[in-house]
């Protein structure tokens, strides 16, 4: 891999994939902690405060790692993608800077207050700080998704004679239709991660017969929030994303569905391995005409296949795209099944005794992280070969003077450092889970 472009792409892919483990958890937990604090305040039930305090510790560890791995992301636009930054900085710099100015200050302030100020702030003040933390992290999510959405579906810009994109409509950038769909889909994904994490720890406590009161509380809240999020993830947000793709990124849609031939009444592939040489799907398990219906709401509608487009305009890694998309959808379906069954048992008041269901919840833990990661791979590999869809190719955006050797050097450095971070994260989180929810609030 002497090609600098490949190394720069790997560099961004590796650092962003690792980074995204943490925000998806903290954004999900931020909502759940806020709900815990709200219930605690309204009912005056100390159990919920204890639960919130426990999750604040897990949140704190993840938040710190999200912050330190997030800063390299903002810098990499300039270091590794300088030609892209030169051309598009006047547009996407707006949303990136807004993230710093509007949400990072908010988050960092109230994160400190929430973690250390429970006694100083009193119940109402502490509740407010949990709300601010929730708003800050969700706003941050929006501005990052809006940045990505502009690269997926550029709006509100004009091309200057010197090759720079200039902003012409601030509101078009901030209220990009693509961003609205992508944001709701992404945030629901984060809520699912948070819910499964909470339910999994709850199941662990119930199965090992420790902290059972808290375990039940975790499962109850997580299953209720999770089942709602899992359904909304499928419809309308996942469906809405698909409609946007069909209209604006038909190349991506064809490649991720593994649709080689343009056809009327196109089938939906559930399983199968794309054979890129013979241009067909091996061992296919398909639902006839379903892709046409899902995309256009007409069973016989024509869907463009990969044969419709010149090869240089198709994503350059179709197999990865196909699999990441199918992994995401497959897991999403599994989440609905597991959560629906859990919710049913919760309603019948048999969930806490059902060891099989508790084991299922316990073992579900890694899968939402995988599904969210696969979702992002689908979005970003699907955007290829474009850096800004239809306007700037990925190879045109790279820093020309940063050689493959220099990029490898820093990529290896990040790999080593992030391995250490991963070990520390698991060590500290497992330690907190082992200790369990504390009885007393700590003071600052």
């Amino acid at each position, binding site marked *: 891999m002497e090609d600098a472009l490949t190394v720069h792409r790997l560099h961004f892919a590796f650092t962003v994939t690792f980074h995204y483990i943490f925000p998806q958890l903290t954004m999900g937990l931020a909502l759940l902690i806020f709900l815990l604090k709200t219930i605690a305040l309204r009912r005056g039930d100390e159990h919920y405060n204890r639960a919130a305090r426990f999750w604040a510790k897990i949140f704190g560890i993840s938040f710190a790692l999200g912050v330190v791995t997030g800063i390299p992301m903002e810098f990499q636009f300039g270091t590794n993608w300088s030609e892209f930054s030169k051309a598009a900085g006047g547009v996407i710099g707006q949303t990136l800077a807004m993230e710093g100015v509007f949400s990072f200050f908010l988050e*960092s302030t109230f994160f400190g207050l929430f973690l250390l100020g429970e006694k100083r702030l009193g119940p109402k003040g502490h509740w407010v700080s949990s709300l601010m933390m929730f708003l800050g992290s969700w706003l941050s999510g929006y501005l990052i998704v809006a940045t990505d959405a502009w690269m997926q579906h550029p709006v509100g810009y004009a091309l200057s004679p010197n090759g720079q994109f200039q902003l012409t409509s601030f509101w078009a950038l901030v209220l990009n239709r693509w961003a609205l769909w992508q944001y709701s889909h992404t945030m629901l994904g984060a809520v699912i991660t948070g819910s499964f994490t909470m339910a999994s720890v709850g199941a662990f406590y119930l199965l090992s017969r420790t902290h059972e009161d808290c375990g039940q509380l975790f499962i109850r809240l997580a299953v209720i929030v999770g089942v709602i999020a899992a359904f909304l993830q499928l419809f309308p947000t996942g469906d809405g994303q698909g409609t946007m793709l069909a209209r604006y990124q038909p190349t991506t849609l064809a490649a991720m569905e593994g649709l080689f031939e343009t056809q009327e009444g196109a089938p939906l592939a559930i399983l199968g391995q794309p054979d890129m040489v013979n241009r067909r799907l091996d061992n296919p398990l398909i639902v006839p005409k379903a892709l046409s219906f899902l995309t256009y709401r007409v069973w016989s509608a024509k869907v463009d296949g990969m044969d419709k487009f010149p090869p240089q305009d198709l994503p350059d890694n179709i197999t990865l795209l196909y699999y990441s998309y199918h992994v995401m959808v497959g897991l999403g379906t599994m989440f609905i099944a597991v959560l629906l069954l859990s919710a049913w048992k919760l309603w019948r008041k048999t969930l806490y005794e059902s060891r099989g269901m508790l084991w299922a919840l316990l073992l579900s833990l890694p899968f939402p992280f995988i599904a969210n990661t696969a979702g992002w791979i689908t979005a970003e590999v699907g955007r290829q070969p474009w850096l800004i869809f239809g306007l700037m190719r990925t190879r045109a955006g790279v820093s020309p003077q940063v050689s493959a050797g220099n990029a490898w050097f820093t990529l290896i*450095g990040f790999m080593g450092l992030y391995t250490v971070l991963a070990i520390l994260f698991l060590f500290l989180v497992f330690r907190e889970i082992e200790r369990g929810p504390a009885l007393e609030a700590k003071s600052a």
Partner: protein
Amino acid sequence: MGNIWFCLVALMLMVYVVLDGFDLGAGAVHLFVAKTDTERRQVIRSIGPVWDGNEVWLIAAGGTLYFTFPLVYASSFSGFYLPLMMVLWLFVLRGISVEFRTHVEGPIWTGFWDAVFSLASLLLAVFFGAALGNVVRGVPLDSQGRFFEPLWTDFRIGRETGILDWYTLLVGVAALCALLLHGALWVALKTENAVYERARRLARFAWFGIAILTVVVTAVTFRIQRIVPGNFSTRQWGFLFPVIALAGLLGVAWSLIRKKDARAFGSSCAYLAGMLASVAFGLHPYVLPASTNSAYALTVENAKAPEYGLRIGLIWWAIGMFLATGYSVFSYRRFAGKVSSAAEEQGY
């Protein structure tokens, strides 16, 4: 509009250096002023609730530079590729050492993170000084506005210069000295007893160091970068900034002798702000001077983003900064006063 943003970005960086400067300085003096675990906890607690918010000023300044001067952002970040990545690694290490130190008790765990915290903070101070030195000295820009500097060559200033040469190293040492002073004064302000005394003693040493280095660096800079003396001779009101810096430096000495801790720290803030304002004033309208050919240099005019984006940006930026300042003030007031040395207090 370009000049307004030049001033605002410079202002954000100034706030960053003044605020995160004391975190980094406190980190750099950490091992010297605090010996026992209880004492070290005091130092960490003095910055614990605020370091993250202080670091945000750099991220916000970076983002603001990105949308206002995209050419400068792209050119300098890719040109300073290697040192910037190392700065990022140091940021990662500093951040996790502050946050993770308190999670486990025991001398191996805390001792390790104390050392990581101190070393990362110290190196960051040197790196930031060297970065400033590079910007002032100028970089080998080509006609496309690109450059790439190796970490070092022969440590001489010339055509084949690296990130580190004798001048940038000198600025790096000066920055370290300034932040040692700044950090020691912060620690003195926030602590009591043994830590307080040691911090004051260290501040006295750092003061002599920075007093000498300020004179040396200023003299050398006027010779190396001709833009700077040019600016000061044509627009003499600019001498206001070095005067503020000088007053700050003398103010630190005066307040140290009289044991006015808050005034000493405030004077140190004035010194840092005055020095950085002098640099910004001295370089204007250049944002990134070229060591190759002055026609290749990036200036406010040739590097700024188009008008519409700058205008709309000013509106939301003003609103955002108003809010951000509000949170910062709120947070500092919440955690005002000396940190307690009582051992039963958990957390930071």
